[in-house]
């Protein structure tokens, strides 16, 4: 792996990624041997605009969250010491003997489930001492009550400890390599097992995974982990975020112009979810996501798509093949409807999405005041395309809009604000043609399907997708050297038509996923 340049962002030095709230809960479940993850209300994390829900940059520990952690830890500690079944489940790790003996053994055996690594002797000694120093430990009448006294404080400490809250990834010093100004250090087997498990399953590693990673060493092959059903759930979450499915759930349409379309977003998001999961389940590739016409619709969506509605109802979503003008996720109601306003499709939103998120072409923000000062389209212009072209034709706007944003949006001009296919608008044929650039070459297209077919062949599309999947997996934006490292995987996506699952497998076995990088102190 090539080390980062000095201009790389500081995030690449992070090795204390904080658990998500779901992960915190599942770690507590595994630690305490609960049947289900305990539910707590925790201060939600915000998601960076240029990142995903896995992005660690916003996972700060602030006072609000600390109070939530404390409340959760105190509640769970009380459950364990007051509920006989819960107490037995945890203390079984202590075996037989007097209270100090059982306490030491319990910390030795059970605490690695909390910290995802064995504790050092010093840590064990310290926890035993803290537990035995509790006032109630000395006065308790029997060994179980002594253990309860010790656990009451130790569980509070443990579930608020930085070793519980963060994935502490310090790496294996024995394998450290100095490269220029940087130190590249492989993850320890415990760290790698934790990173794999939290990334793919949103849960702490189980003993089997830890043992397998330890036994396999550098040659451990994590590829088969992506076949676990939990990894499919992870991929669905990624795709829903990437294709704005969650955002589409709340789309609002003017019911005067679009009667009967209240809460359309709920149906649209459901369809998108079913489609995205179907592609992954069947071993589909990025091309399938971008081109497939397979879908699942209820009665309302079928009417929007121009499909027969006989026998359909509002609740059941049944498989269908969409008409030929559609191609992939970006021609569904969820995306076309989301990239629109209450009344009208938004060629600009669509173009910006395609440019930034489908092709990863950087776009700056509009110049200050450009939006406000854009001229109003005269009433003589009849089509949405004409109006958008007029409004964005000024000097301040044309640089991005004329060459990049508008053409990429106009490819989808044939879908109105609720995703219906339009052939004419106010008596004029809808113009979905255009020219844009892919892989640095000019291309022309006739409409959404033609556009998506060409996009799905472009190197930059696959590079963009793999980069975003890698960013999801690593929980942060990629550095240039990491994007370069993922280039062969992007090529497999394009030229070998590798499945999405296979791409994920490649990423979690890549050097970037198995190591930490930091600056030389």
């Amino acid at each position, binding site marked *: 792996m090539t080390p980062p340049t000095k201009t790389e962002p500081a995030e690449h030095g992070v090795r204390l990624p904080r658990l998500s709230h779901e992960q915190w809960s599942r770690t507590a479940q595994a630690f305490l041997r609960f049947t289900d993850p305990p539910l707590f209300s925790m201060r939600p994390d915000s998601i960076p605009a240029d990142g995903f829900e896995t992005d660690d940059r916003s996972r700060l520990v602030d006072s609000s969250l600390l109070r939530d952690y404390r409340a959760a830890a105190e509640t769970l500690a009380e459950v364990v010491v007051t509920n006989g079944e819960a107490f037995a489940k945890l203390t079984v790790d202590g075996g037989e003997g007097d209270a100090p003996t059982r306490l030491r053994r319990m910390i030795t055996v059970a605490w690695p489930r909390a910290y995802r690594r064995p504790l050092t002797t010093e840590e064990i000694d310290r926890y035993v001492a803290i537990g035995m120093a509790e006032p109630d430990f000395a006065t308790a009448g029997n060994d179980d009550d002594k253990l309860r006294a010790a656990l009451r404080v130790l569980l509070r*400490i443990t579930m608020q400890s930085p070793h519980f809250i963060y994935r502490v990834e310090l790496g294996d010093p024995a394998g450290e390599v100095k490269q220029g100004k940087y130190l590249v250090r492989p993850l320890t087997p415990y760290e790698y097992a934790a990173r794999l498990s939290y990334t793919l399953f949103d849960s702490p590693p189980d003993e089997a995974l830890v043992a397998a990673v330890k036994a396999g060493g550098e040659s451990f092959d994590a590829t088969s982990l992506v076949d676990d059903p939990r990894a499919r759930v992870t991929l669905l979450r990624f795709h829903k975020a990437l294709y704005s499915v969650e955002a589409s759930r709340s789309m609002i349409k003017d019911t005067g112009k679009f009667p009967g379309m209240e809460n359309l977003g709920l149906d649209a998001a459901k369809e998108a979810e079913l489609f995205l999961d179907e592609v992954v389940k069947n071993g589909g590739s990025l091309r399938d996501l971008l081109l497939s016409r397979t879908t699942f619709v209820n009665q309302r969506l079928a009417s929007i798509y121009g499909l027969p509605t006989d026998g359909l109802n509002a609740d059941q979503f049944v498989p269908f093949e969409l008409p030929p003008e559609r191609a992939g996720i970006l021609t569904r109601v969820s995306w076309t409807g989301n990239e629109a306003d209450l009344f009208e499709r938004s060629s600009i939103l669509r173009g910006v999405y395609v440019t930034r998120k489908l092709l990863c072409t950087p776009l700056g923000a509009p110049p200050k005041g450009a939006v406000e000062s854009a001229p109003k389209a005269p009433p003589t212009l009849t089509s949405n395309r004409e109006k958008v072209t007029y409004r964005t034709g000024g000097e301040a706007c044309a640089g991005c809009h004329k060459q990049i944003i508008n053409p990429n949006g106009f490819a989808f001009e044939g879908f109105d604000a609720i995703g219906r296919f339009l052939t004419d608008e106010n008596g004029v044929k809808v113009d979905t043609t255009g020219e844009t650039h892919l892989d640095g070459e000019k291309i022309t297209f006739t409409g959404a399907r033609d556009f998506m077919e060409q996009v799905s062949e472009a190197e930059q599309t696959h590079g963009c997708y793999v980069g975003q999947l890698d960013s999801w997996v690593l929980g942060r934006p990629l550095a240039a050297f990491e994007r370069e490292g993922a280039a062969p995987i992007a090529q497999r996506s394009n030229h070998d038509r590798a499945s999405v699952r296979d791409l994920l497998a490649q990423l979690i076995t890549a050097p970037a996923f198995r190591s930490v990088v930091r600056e030389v102190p």
Partner: protein
Amino acid sequence: MIRSNRRRFLAGMGGLLVALPFLEGLERPTLADTMDRRFLLNFRQWFGVQQKPRFGGTYRDEVERFWPNASVDPGGKVALTRQLLEKTDGGGELRATGELADFASSLLILRGVRVMDLNGLHRPHLVQVMTGSTWQKTRPGFDPGDDNNAWPLHETLDALFARSLNAPKPLVFEAVQDGDSQTSFENGKDGAIPSMISPMRHPSEAYAKLFLTKQLEGKEAALRLRASDAILAELKSLRADPRLSSEDRRRLDAHFDAMNEVETKLQCLPPDINDASMVALRDADKPKLSDASKARWEAVGLYNEYVDSASDAFLQIAALGVACGAFRAANIVMSPQTNFNRSTVFDENGSEFSQGFPGHYHALSHRAFSHDGQNDDADNSEPEKGALAHHRIDRWHARKFAKLLGLLRDAGVLDQGVTMWTNENATGDHWAYDMPYIIAGSAGGKLRTGQLMDLQSGGVDPGDTVDDGAIRNAAMAKQMPCSRVLNSVGAALGLTNDDKSPLSEFGGFQGNLPRITGNLPSLLT
């Protein structure tokens, strides 16, 4: 030391004491030295203010009694001084904003601001004031055709602010209220429509919840302290690991600060309830203490005598909370239901209002004076007296706002945040142009305070006042959309767009009209 300053300014809240945090051993500055004190308070009045409407309407002939008595052309500005704010019209009444004369240099009074959609009456305007976006008719479970169920398109600015700071969501204090105040909204979960933040209506309960329930005593407190000490030791040990990157250390430092803040807040002790400074809180509790029937206490009518004390108690709680760092965003919604009696509104300088007055505020805003302000159908029955009564009510609100500013100034935090006086309408006849956006506090020097600005872009043409449609069109064309004011306040408070530039993309939706965003550089330093 800043820490002692902190103790001093909290003491200014009325005897509040802050014990030194237990995290004394930290090798880095504690929170008290580094605390980010930004806050956003919204003081909300109902039913518009008494002003001379620029584009006409029912009250076109009324005397101007709200805005400062200064000649400012549309697009212009003038420096605010005590003298200007106290200037009357030849011996006439003090303008309502004149009650704020003590705070001239901390004020940014904005005239010429409209909501995004001037259609509708009360709620359609109200929900735009802090979202800067038009409204929708999609209140869950209610008749979509009823304007009174108007719902915002998205979260309000205070919610965005709190969310951006990872702070607790905004608080809503309703100082005597019946029904929804529809003041603060957070974005719905999983894309659902925005949800209204539930209000706190009992000052003493709010006080206890915010400041007292965090107190622990005896065994449990000692146990929590032992756990905290052990966690702190682990944090320090981990932070000392040489294998950490500088970014890791920054992250752990933030964690330290958060621990410090939590523990400090534990000891953010309120004054004793019998302290002289707590008179408002005690008074606000009187009905509850004297009346065994809680249902009767909650009946609107019984509140009326306690408007002053309930309002004052919430003002005190709001100021204490932001000074203490207990919360960052709060709304104090003044009462829409109250009978403003002689003592609160009309008993100035020992002279009783000539008619006596049991009036109903809403009816008064419609100038229904001849029916003792108790009949909304008697609109404009005695316009001059009604207008004067409305003005007196505006001044009562202004004095309450000034009281809030005074508490914040005494606590040393007035200029650390932004405190706004807003209204659901601009006038009693429901127009929502020239909306009061009375801003106080510079957000740490980021807002250009000490100014009166008219943000309207041009003068009023004769044809603008012909009928409602003309008024609406003229105001829409010439007045400043409130989205731009909110973006400016947000930018001053350090909020940013997705690309980290100062906030300019909040709200701005106008239905089928082009979205209007952007902040106003003229308001920012």
